[in-house]
């Protein structure tokens, strides 16, 4: 009986050792840290890139840019950082963790409404309805953009009382501040909240969702920045250039990202 126990324990230890050695010997992939809103186009770009470069493998980690930022700061190894705003990339650059900051795509905000609910025509109607609203947390780029957009909208209203009322309506409509844009999207899709503010690129034809556009006069322009880790391998640089290539740019355009002029 004891012998069985000992051999069980020993084999368990051996198993752990094997797992560890396997992990260290695995071929190193290009590790990409990407903003959650880039998920669909980047997955397609990844597929294309891996077909064209059969010997390189991409590992993409999607999350809110602020989460990726803190992971990188805490020492997670990475090759590329695709941030949804300049702020986080800039901070990493100051700490010499990242080189380069290149805009590779642009985006704007839209309102999404769960289709079980009546569609509203604009932001004002949304704020005067009793719909619950999901937005990004202040630290998440989309949340930051949302607040900026809303402030610009308030500025466009001259009546002070009206402005205050809309502001109060906004504050009471927001039920949760999510940590990435896809959580906002999916929770509105599920009907957990009636409305949400996401990027234009996040919306694609869906029977569960209505789209309400936000006029350009107070909409914001969200720019995506691309940074390279200090100790990036040559393969990573290849992917860096690939994202800026026309092939990748076409894919971004397909998913409703606004294109940027790339000149190097």
């Amino acid at each position, binding site marked *: 009986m004891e012998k069985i126990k000992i051999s069980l324990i020993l084999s368990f230890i051996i198993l752990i050792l094997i797992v560890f050695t396997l992990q260290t010997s695995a071929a190193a992939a290009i590790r990409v840290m990407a903003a959650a809103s880039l998920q669909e186009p980047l997955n397609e770009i990844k597929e294309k890139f891996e077909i064209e470069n059969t010997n390189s493998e991409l590992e993409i980690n999607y999350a809110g840019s602020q989460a990726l930022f803190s992971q990188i700061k805490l020492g997670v190894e990475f090759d590329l950082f695709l941030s949804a705003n300049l702020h986080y990339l800039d901070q990493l650059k100051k700490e010499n963790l990242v080189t380069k900051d290149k805009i590779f795509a642009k985006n704007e905000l839209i309102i999404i409404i769960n289709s079980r609910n009546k569609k509203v025509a604009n932001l004002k109607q949304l704020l005067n309805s009793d719909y619950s609203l*999901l937005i990004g947390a202040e630290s998440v780029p989309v949340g930051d953009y949302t607040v900026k957009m809303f402030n610009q909208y308030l500025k466009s209203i001259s009546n002070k009382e009206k402005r205050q009322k809309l502001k109060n309506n906004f504050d009471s409509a927001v039920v949760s501040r*999510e*940590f990435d844009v896809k959580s906002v999207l999916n929770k509105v899709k599920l009907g957990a909240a009636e409305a949400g503010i996401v990027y234009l690129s996040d919306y694609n034809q869906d029977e569960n969702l209505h789209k309400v556009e936000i006029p350009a006069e107070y909409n914001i322009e969200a720019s995506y920045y691309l940074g390279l880790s200090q100790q990036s391998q040559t393969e990573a640089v290849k992917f860096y250039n690939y994202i800026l290539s026309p092939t990748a740019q076409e894919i971004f355009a397909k998913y409703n990202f606004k294109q940027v002029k790339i000149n190097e």
Partner: protein
Amino acid sequence: MSENIFLETEKQNSSYQKAALFSPAYFNDLKSFSFPAQILIILIAALNMIFIAFVISSLFIESSVADIINVFSSVNILSAFKITFFSLGISASLTVLLGIPFSYLISRRNQYINKILNILISLPLLLPPSITGLALLLSFGNRGILSSLTSNLAFSFAGLVIVQLFVMLPLFTLTLKNSFSSIDENIIEAAVVEGAAENDLLFKVYLPLSLRGFTTALIISVLRAAGEFGATIIFAGNMSGKTQTLTTAIYSLTQTNLSQAVALAVIMISAFLLPLFLVEFRIKD
């Protein structure tokens, strides 16, 4: 004479209960193992301890007293404290209210249906928090199957209490049930022979004899709910002053202000240690 026997069995029963709850009986006698096995066990135990100590101490090393004091000046964190304690108070009361009769029921009658019940209440305990959150969202959200009964509970304080209740109740019930069913059959029989009714049995025999089990069950289930994160963030959302708990506040802070996150984590660990000490050292059988 008969009183003596009663006391004797009670003593046996409670020592057994202690062993069953926290330490597997075979570890009590290390000497029964052969020498190399003894060394191996001690080695593994030591490694385990060192591992835990290292991981936890990293937080204490990283934090400073100034950070910890700073934490209490943040309005958001203070409201997270308030929300956490308030919601835990409600869900703990509900858990006790619902959990005691339930554990009594499933501990007493060893029937086929109890095994099914057992499986059913074990499930929330083992369910990954992400699945729990999603399931709650699907059942209580606007499109949910329970949405006709209630208003939309997602992202509300009531939603937070539901999440906590969902994880607390099974842990409480199962722990208390174990404690109940380890009570000596003879005592129960004696009580029944003396003419004890069902509620006398529960309140005068079962509960007094498993005070330790009850407190342990309550403390660990409250701690489990206090640490709940995944389901909370999915179902109850993240809204400071409404649904943001200490755990979601820590997550939020790791993304913006790491030193405050670490300080808050240290506070929370310290707060966790106190009840655990209580369970181990203070509660007499």
